[in-house]
């Protein structure tokens, strides 16, 4: 950290310049969170005007709600699985893109194409997948499966199809993010290192595990942290594609809270669930932040 010698007239400048940000973060971020905690201590139904203090009753009820634990568990497992798949696939694509034999203009064209999926609104993309691709009668997936005599794919049949469909969609939509940041890391590795290693007779697998991965370790960690935290709070894709169904197999924490708050109107209960979810997220952030220098 560098710092300038501060003259007297400018001594207060650090405070002037950061004060607006601190005030706004406090007003739009901290105040609603505290208010959410207050709501979670009340029995607050959207349909009835009566609000009563119930203390920790909402939290006690949550601890006996298997559906809530299922939702938290699904968010964690799905987020972890999706992030790991995306990291592995993304690494392979980025490695291939940075390959010396691939012309750089071709590689940059492919990267531009890969940028398109992640600048699209997830809700629109999920609709597209739901109708044009996964739909049982009109979707192209089943049309091509039929042409190849491979049976058909029904998103809502069995307990594995819906999570699988979500996972495939999530991987196709989100891997490009990791490809682009990992490509930046791999392509900036000094070529002299490869040459030196080749003289020592390195195999391609050793090249990946001994040179490439250690060099971009920081990028992999940041990519993992960002993708994992984002897929933990994923909403649009699940809400549109399966709405948590069939049953509540694909319901994650966010969908559960929305369901409680805006379908059943249990605002107090939903606020309590949201608050617990926030506590979990903050614990995870604190664990991740120690390994990463932001």
């Amino acid at each position: 950290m560098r710092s300038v010698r501060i003259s007297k007239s400018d001594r207060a400048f650090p405070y002037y310049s950061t004060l607006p940000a601190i005030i706004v973060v406090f007003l739009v971020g901290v105040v609603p969170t505290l208010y959410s905690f207050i709501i979670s201590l009340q029995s607050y139904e959207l349909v009835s005007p009566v609000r009563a203090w119930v203390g920790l009753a909402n939290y006690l009820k949550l601890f006996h709600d298997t559906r809530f634990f299922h939702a938290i568990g699904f968010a964690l497992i799905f987020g972890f699985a999706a992030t790991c798949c995306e990291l592995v696939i993304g690494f392979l694509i980025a490695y291939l893109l940075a390959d010396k034999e691939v012309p750089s203009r071709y590689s940059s064209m492919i990267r531009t194409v890969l940028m398109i999926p992640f600048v699209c609104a997830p809700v629109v993309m999920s609709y597209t997948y739901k109708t044009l691709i996964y739909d049982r009668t009109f979707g192209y997936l089943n049309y091509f499966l039929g042409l190849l005599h491979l049976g058909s794919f029904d998103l809502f049949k069995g307990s594995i199809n819906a999570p699988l469909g979500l996972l495939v969609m999530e991987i196709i939509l989100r891997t490009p993010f990791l490809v682009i940041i990992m490509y930046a890391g791999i392509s900036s590795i000094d070529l002299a290192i490869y040459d030196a290693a080749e003289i020592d007779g390195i195999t391609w697998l050793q090249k990946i595990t001994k040179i490439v991965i250690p060099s971009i370790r920081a990028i992999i960690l940041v990519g993992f942290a960002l993708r994992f935290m984002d897929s933990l709070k994923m909403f649009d894709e699940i809400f549109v594609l399966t709405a948590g169904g069939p049953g509540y197999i694909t319901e994650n924490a966010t969908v559960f809270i929305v369901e409680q708050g805006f379908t059943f109107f249990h605002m107090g209960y939903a606020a309590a669930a949201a608050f617990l979810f926030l506590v979990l997220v903050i614990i995870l952030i604190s664990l991740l932040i120690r390994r990463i220098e932001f």
Partner: protein
Amino acid sequence: MKLVKWMRKCSKMFVLGLIAFVSLIPFILVFFTSIKERVIALSMPPVWFFVPTLRNYTDLLTNTAFLRSVLNSLLIASASTFIAMIIGILAGYGFSRFRFKGKGFFTYMILALRMTPSIVFIIPYFIIWRTIRLNDTHLSMILMYLTLCLPLIILMMRSFVVDVPLELEEAAMVDGCSRWQTLRLILVPVLRPGILAAATLAFIALWNDFILAMFNTGRNTRTLTVEIYTSLSFYQIDWNKLSTSAIIAVIPAIIFISLTQKYIVRGLTMGAIKG
């Protein structure tokens, strides 16, 4: 030997092309559906040869509800990005150039805000806006979107400022600029590409947001993503409309991203990585 090398090169290029194609499949399908006549859009097996039509586009662009939602999205996202940029440039400068009490804590707060699930804010805001009678106003959406874009922008700007050589500022201050003048006259012009990239990424994040808008917009402020979601739920399988609005929703994002490619990698990781 040369042939083997050539084959290897071609197969690598082929694999990459295939990957790009797979990620483009939905867009190709959407594009073709958007230029099909309503009757053949749904037919299965699909009609591969057809006369393209622009009717879906003219239908959608004369639909006032749709146009209004586009305007709402533009207004809300750009106003929120603009406010966040002003606050964010100042804070990015302050956070990267000075040490002061409580700095570590605020940096942590901003990072935590970036990763906090939006769902945590939806319930309190839903009730707050109703209590102070601000529900269904553009102002409420602009304020709420600050939670999404402000942390993003502060973290990005902080990392861009660190890269500017300190000597530049010192020279300006020797010549008699105050801190404020140095920031305005020296740093902002130097940082312009970074500022553009940060604004672009923030704007796209807001333009694509669905969850905050879904539960806090009403008749007057419905944004594009919510409009697409609600209009499709009503008329279940209007695939032409879906495809056409998908194409239109994606246009601004693609334009913006192609303008600021260079700084995007830095921006995407909020400065954690120098790309």
